[in-house]
């Protein structure tokens, strides 16, 4: 998938932003906490890094060409 890093960036940013809003709504952090700003940025960075450094999947072993028929 091309532009995988873009998917990682957008997903990571909104993941971090939504997490900070959830933490605010459940009184885990105060409104002036640095996490409110830090989490979206961290999500953006982790999303890009994870997408760029995702390992390549195993490629299927190349199949040998069929043997020619006998007698030719």
């Amino acid at each position, binding site marked *: 998938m091309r532009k995988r890093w873009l998917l*990682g960036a957008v997903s990571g940013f909104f993941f971090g932003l939504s997490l900070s809003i959830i933490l605010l709504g459940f009184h885990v952090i105060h409104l002036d906490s640095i996490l409110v700003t*830090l989490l979206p940025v961290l999500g953006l960075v982790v999303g890009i890094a994870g997408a760029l450094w*995702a390992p390549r999947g195993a490629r299927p072993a190349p199949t040998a060409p069929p043997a020619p028929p006998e007698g030719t």
Partner: protein
Amino acid sequence: MRALRLGVAALFVLAAPLLTAARADANLEPPCSASGTLNGVTYDAAKVNAATIPRTGDVHWKGSIPGSGTRAIDGKVVVKLPWPIPERTLGSWTKESDSYENSGVYHYDLPSVLAGVDIPVSGDHTEHGKTCLGSVVVRIEGGGVSNPVVIGTFVVFIISGVGLWVSFRPKGV
């Protein structure tokens, strides 16, 4: 890749407790005194460092400091917002004054999206080289799943989590 995941996990484990640790909110220090009455409940700034209030209301406030004569005063009450947003000033004063007490009514009407949010409010007053400091964490009633913004945020959280999982999957799979 595994090293990256472990590094990020360690960062959150180590940093989160430090960043979410409860603040040591300071009550109002003497010789200043201040209080606010909301819906019949009086909050003494010298004794209270946290309060839960409704989204809208009228606060009957008063403040005083011992002394006499005219002198220069300076002070403000601010709401602290997340960096890099600057703090918002609710009220300020800087002038020559011979008054040593003041009172009034402050009307506020907060948006529903702030329900359940803990908002740090702080203030200071300076005169004759002395400074009084005080702060309180104000929690707006409601919050949690009763805040529609939080419910919508859960949906975004799940969708973006799926997006992250897809972007982290091995390439070519």
